[in-house]
């Protein structure tokens, strides 16, 4: 006899009258293999639904005088007892009679589980005994035992699918020797995986009857159930389609991830093998990556410096660099080939060229920076060596020219002294030789002063009033200007003070004024103008411009290009050709600029020299290094002198 639930009738019919018959919609699986007993499996969603059905199964068995064995969880045992009581059954009496045996599923399992599997002998002993005793207590001689077992569900929930199936087969084996109707229950939620399809088939195969969960069995009639099947079939098809699409996406994702990974590895290899140090930092200046070259260049291992501030490699006096760099980066600006000094772990200073680019996230927000650092210490060394060589070469050229300029008059002096000595008996003649010798010596002295003296001016720079200095100089020229009837025009605008070497500044003005005076042997105008202004080439630089203009003969165009060369002169009789060369050197030393404009056309001829001195300027060597760095960062050209303007 097989038990099924006929839920439609349960409330209207007395327990004894309940008839159990196979429902038309209940699929029968392996019916032939399980024929000596009923072994039903029920899947369920809701505990309440399970217990309702179970109470009818057990209730009708007890009502028929048969015995019941319940091996379940505490909650299910309690729930069942409550429902049986509600159905009007006195289970305490049945328990007393031994017809109602309720055992804990977990405790019972422990009695026959060995090494994670149910032991067949122990199982037969333990469960066989329970069944035999229950059957003995039954009122009817031929009655079978109605059993409910949840041990398989427990094993299943623990992930021991194999043990659960073994246990199901042990129950079937036990049916050879014992007569019982076993009802097993699994929550359908335990089969939520695609991979559970095989297992649920195996579980079903181990039973003689399979009852689907309540979403199917609770349906009122055949028509609804068929509709449900169609709905489920459609769901299954849709799910399969969905799964296929999902698999495609999954495969695509894996491919993308591999491609991305490969690209990342390739990039990482490039960064790692680069000769330049490559590092990254966040907007707080904290180092976030550090390649092999950076390790070699600075001596810090990646793990030592990542997470620390990048200021670790910035010399103390250049710490302000970082603020500026971060400021520029926050604005999204790039820094290109910024030459500065960095500190290695051992404290050594190295010259580096920095290129720093902002790193942005997907939304374009700057989140950090990538920096490439090239060690240019060797290049810098070579540059300095080259500059020194160049300096030596120019000194050599100067020496050669000076040698010529001095050796020639020396030759004359030597000869003249020889002649004077020879003609001592003829005093007027001897005096003539000595006078000539004296003139040649003056020439030598002048050249020596102009060339050698220039390099020895080591007085300290001082605040110098340009207008006052010009006034003093012009006073010296007063009589000369008057005798040549040169009209002097002074145009001073504003406070005119400079930090400069006064001796050198005086030499500049003196050279320009005397050139102007020489250019006007027959009169004209000398205009001396002083004004506060800005550098023509770089408006950031404020300073003073001194303009000395004359209405003299002018300089021929092909000569203008050469006037700043040493020993170039158009006044062979009186000039050394060093005045303007020295003037330009002094102006450059003060980081200023000198310009000349000249016309030779009769009636409008004249020459204008314009000298610019920066007011904050002093020699670049004396300028704090960070200040020069600032200037570089601003892209300023203010530090270059007048080299291109000569």
């Amino acid at each position, binding site marked *: 006899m097989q038990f099924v639930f006929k839920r439609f009738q349960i409330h209207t019919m007395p327990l004894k009258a309940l008839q159990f018959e196979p429902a038309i919609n209940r699929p029968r699986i392996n019916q032939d293999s399980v024929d000596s007993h009923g072994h039903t499996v029920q899947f369920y969603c809701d505990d309440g639904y399970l217990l309702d059905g179970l109470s009818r199964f057990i209730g009708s068995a007890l009502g028929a005088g048969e015995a019941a064995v319940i091996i379940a969880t505490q909650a299910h045992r309690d729930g069942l007892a409550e429902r049986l009581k509600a159905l009007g059954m006195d289970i305490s009496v049945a328990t007393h009679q031994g017809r109602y045996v309720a055992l804990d599923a977990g405790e019972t399992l422990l009695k026959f589980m060995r090494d994670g599997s149910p032991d067949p002998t122990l199982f037969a002993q333990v469960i066989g005994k329970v069944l035999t005793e229950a059957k003995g207590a039954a009122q009817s001689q031929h009655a079978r035992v109605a059993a409910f077992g949840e041990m398989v569900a427990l094993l299943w929930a623990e992930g021991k699918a194999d043990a659960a199936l073994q246990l199901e087969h042990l129950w079937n084996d036990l049916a050879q020797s014992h007569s019982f109707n076993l009802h097993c229950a699994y929550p359908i939620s335990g089969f939520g995986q695609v991979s559970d399809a095989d297992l649920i088939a195996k579980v079903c195969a181990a039973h003689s009857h399979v009852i689907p969960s309540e979403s199917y069995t609770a349906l009122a009639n055949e028509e609804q159930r068929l509709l449900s099947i169609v709905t489920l079939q459609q769901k299954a098809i849709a799910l399969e389609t969905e799964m296929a699409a999902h698999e495609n996406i999954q495969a695509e994702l894996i491919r993308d991830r591999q491609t991305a990974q490969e690209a990342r590895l390739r990039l990482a290899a490039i960064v790692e093998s680069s000769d330049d140090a490559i590092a990254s930092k966040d907007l707080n200046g904290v180092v976030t990556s550090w390649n092999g070259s950076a390790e070699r260049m600075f001596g810090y291992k990646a793990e030592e410096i990542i997470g620390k501030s990048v200021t670790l490699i910035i010399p103390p006096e250049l710490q302000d660099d970082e603020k500026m760099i971060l400021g520029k980066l926050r604005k999204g600006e790039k820094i290109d080939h910024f030459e500065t000094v960095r500190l290695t772990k051992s404290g050594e200073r190295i010259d580096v060229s920095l290129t720093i680019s902002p790193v942005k996230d997907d939304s374009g927000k700057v989140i950090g920076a990538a920096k490439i650092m090239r060690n240019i210490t060797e290049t810098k060394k070579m540059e300095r060596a080259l500059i020194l060589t160049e300096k030596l070469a120019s000194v050599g050229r100067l020496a*050669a*020219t000076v*040698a*010529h300029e*001095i*050796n*020639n008059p*020396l*030759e*004359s*002096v*030597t*000869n*003249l*002294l*020889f*002649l004077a*000595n*020879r*003609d*001592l*008996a003829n005093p007027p003649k001897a005096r003539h*030789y000595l006078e*000539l010798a004296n003139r*040649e010596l003056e020439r030598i002295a002048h050249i020596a002063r102009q060339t050698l003296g220039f390099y020895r001016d080591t007085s300290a720079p001082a605040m110098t009033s340009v207008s006052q200095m010009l006034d003093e100089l012009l006073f010296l020229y007063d009589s000369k200007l008057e005798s040549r009837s040169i009209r002097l025009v002074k145009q001073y605008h504003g406070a005119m003070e400079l930090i400069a070497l006064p001796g050198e500044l005086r030499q500049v003005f003196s050279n320009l004024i005397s050139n102007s005076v020489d250019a006007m042997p027959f009169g004209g105008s000398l205009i001396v103008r002083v004004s506060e202004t800005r550098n023509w080439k770089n408006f950031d630089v404020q300073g003073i411009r001194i303009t000395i203009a004359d209405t003299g003969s002018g300089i021929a165009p092909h000569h203008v290009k050469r006037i700043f060369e040493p020993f170039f002169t158009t006044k062979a009789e009186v000039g050394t050709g060093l005045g303007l060369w020295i003037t330009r050197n002094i102006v450059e030393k003060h980081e200023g600029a000198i310009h000349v404009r000249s016309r030779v056309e009769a009636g409008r001829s004249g020459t204008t020299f314009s000298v610019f001195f920066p007011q904050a300027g002093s020699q670049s060597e004396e300028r704090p290094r960070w200040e020069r760095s600032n200037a570089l960062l601003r892209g300023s050209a203010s530090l270059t002198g007048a080299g291109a303007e000569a």
Partner: protein
Amino acid sequence: MKIIVVDDEPVIADTLVDILNGEGCEAVAVSDGPSAIKWAEMIQPDAIITDVIMSGMNGIEAAKAIMKILPNCRIILFSGQAASLDLLEKARAEGYEFEILAKPINPTLLLEILGLPENPGSLETASRSARTA
């Protein structure tokens, strides 16, 4: 002894001529290479003393031209600057050997080199002999 002195500095050329004439030479001063060649053809000098670096034709070019005309003429170069050495090196590579003196040269020494033995020694000797002359 007939000597031509070539220098673009008139003071040098004139004083040297004065000194040489004082020793009984027939010296003339010229201020450039082409004039030197012209005068050499005319007076057939025994020696030529020439500056090296001069505008136009330099001293070495003039000397080479004069050697062709007067193979026996003694040629003495004198110069105040290192650049002359480069020119001299170039001439040597072409097979020319010249005597060269550095400016300033002591006139007494120059006379000695020219083999004017009646005026040896110091300035005093030179002036004494000049007075006696």
